[in-house]
C-alpha cells in the first residue's frame, strides 16, 4: 500500500494543481511558432496544449460541425469574426495574435524579385487565393506590380501555403509566394520579403470557442500570446505583432 501512496504523492507534485489539457486548432502556416509557444506555455503554467494544424477554411468547417477545440487560431481575420457571428466563438475574445509577412521564395534563382519582374520562369506557386489569406495577398501583390494578367496562366495553386512551398521545394515550380515564417531559416538570398504596402495586411486572429471545456486555461494561453514572452517568440518566427 505504501508505495502506492508514494506514487500518488509523486504524481500530484509533478503536475501543478489544476493542470489542464487544451486543444488548439492552428493555421498550418503557424506550425513552428505554435510548437514553441505551446512548449513555453507548458513550462510556465503546466497546462498542456494539443495542437491541431490545418487550412483555416477546413478548420472552420470542422469547428462548425462540432470539433472539440478550445481555441481557433486562424490565418485570417474573417473566419474568427464568422465564428463569433455564428455563435461558435466567445464575444470579446478575438484579437490579432500575428501579422503574416509574405515572401517570394526562389531557391534556384539569382534574385527572386527580378525573376518575377522579368517573367523568366514557367511556374509560380501560390496558395488558393479564395481560401488562404497568403494566396489572396500573393494575388494582390501580383496585381499591384501590374503582373496579374500576364502571369495568370503560370500560376499553380496549392491547397495551403505549405503545399505552395512543397511545389517549389520539389523543383516543380521555380518560385512561389509563401509565408516568411516558412523560409526564415533559409539563406536570405533565396527569398524576397514582399513589402507589406503591396497587399492588404494578413491579420491572423485568435478566438476562444464557446464549446471549450477548459475556457480558463484556454484564456490563459491567449493572454500568454499577448505577453512579452509570447510576442518575442512570434516575432522570432517572422511574424509581426500588433
Amino acid at each position, binding site marked *: 500500500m505504501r508505495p502506492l501512496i508514494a506514487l500518488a504523492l509523486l504524481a500530484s507534485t509533478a503536475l501543478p494543481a489544476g493542470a489542464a489539457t487544451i486543444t488548439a486548432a492552428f493555421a498550418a502556416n503557424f506550425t513552428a511558432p505554435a510548437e514553441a509557444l505551446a512548449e513555453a506555455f507548458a513550462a510556465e503554467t503546466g497546462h498542456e496544449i494539443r495542437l491541431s494544424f490545418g487550412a483555416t477554411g477546413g478548420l*472552420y468547417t470542422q469547428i462548425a460541425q462540432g470539433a472539440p477545440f478550445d481555441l481557433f487560431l486562424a490565418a485570417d481575420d474573417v473566419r474568427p469574426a464568422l465564428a463569433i457571428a455564428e455563435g461558435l466563438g466567445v464575444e470579446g475574445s478575438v484579437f490579432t495574435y500575428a501579422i503574416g509577412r509574405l515572401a517570394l521564395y526562389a531557391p534556384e534563382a539569382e534574385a527572386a524579385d527580378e525573376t518575377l519582374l522579368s517573367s523568366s520562369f514557367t*511556374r509560380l506557386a501560390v496558395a*488558393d487565393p479564395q481560401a488562404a489569406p497568403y494566396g489572396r495577398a500573393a494575388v494582390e501583390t501580383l496585381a499591384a506590380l501590374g503582373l496579374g494578367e500576364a502571369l495568370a496562366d503560370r500560376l499553380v495553386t496549392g*491547397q495551403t501555403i505549405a503545399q505552395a512551398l512543397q511545389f517549389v521545394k*520539389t*523543383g516543380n515550380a521555380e518560385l512561389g509566394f509563401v509565408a516568411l515564417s516558412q523560409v526564415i531559416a533559409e539563406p536570405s538570398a533565396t527569398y524576397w520579403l514582399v513589402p507589406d504596402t503591396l497587399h492588404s495586411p494578413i491579420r491572423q486572429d485568435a478566438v476562444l470557442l464557446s464549446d471549450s471545456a477548459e475556457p480558463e486555461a484556454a484564456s490563459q494561453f491567449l493572454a500568454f500570446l499577448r505577453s512579452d514572452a509570447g510576442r518575442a517568440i512570434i516575432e522570432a518566427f517572422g511574424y509581426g505583432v500588433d
Partner: protein
Amino acid sequence: MTELWPTIWLTLRLAGVTTLALIVIGTPIAWWLARSRMAYKELVAALVALPLVLPPTVLGFYLLIALGPSGPGGWIAGLWGGRTLAFSFTGLVIGSVLSSLPFMVQPLRIAFEAIGEETLEVARTLGAKPHQILLRIGLPLALPGFAAGSVLTFAHTVGEFGVVLMLGGNITGETRVLSVAIYDYVERLQWTEAHLIALGMVVFSFLVVSLTMLANRRVVRAW
C-alpha cells in the same frame, strides 16, 4: 454552374484517356499474369495490386518527385521545352494510370483465366499462332472482363483525389478535377456548389455500380 463545365469535361476526359491507356497497358500484363507459369508472377501481381492498399499520398509524393525537374518526368518534359510533368494533364494521366492499374488488370486476369487451358490447347493444335490465340480467342472471350475493367477504371479515376491533389496544382481546364473542386468549395464555405457536385457524384457512382452489377448478372445468365 457554368464555371463547373471545364471541370466536369476535364474529369471525364481524364477518366476516358486513363481507361484507354489502361486497356493497352493492362491487357498484356493481365494476359501474362493469367498464362505464365513462373513462380514469381504473384510478386508482379502484388506490385500491380499495391495502389489498392497504398495511401494515395504515397503515390502522390513519389510522383511529385518523379515528374519534377530532377526526375524522369522533367527529362521527358524537356523534350518539348517544359521543365516538369507535374501540373499538366499528362502528369495526371500518368498518376491515374498507376493508381487505377489494379482496377483494370484484376478483372482482365480473372476473365483470361476463366477461358481455360483446354480451349487454348485446341486452338494451338489447330495451328493457331500465339498472337492469333490472343486476338481471336483471348480478347473476344474476355469481353466481359474488359467491360468490367473499363467501367471500374473510369469510375475510380473520376473518384481519384489524393494523387491529383498532390501533383495537380489545381489549374482550371488542365488539372482541376471534380473531387478537388468539392474539397475547395468546402474549404471556401461555398457549400451550395459543394452539395451540387457531391450529389452528382453520388448519383453517378450509384449508376455505375448498379450498371456493373446488372451487366454481371446478364453475363452470368448468358453463360
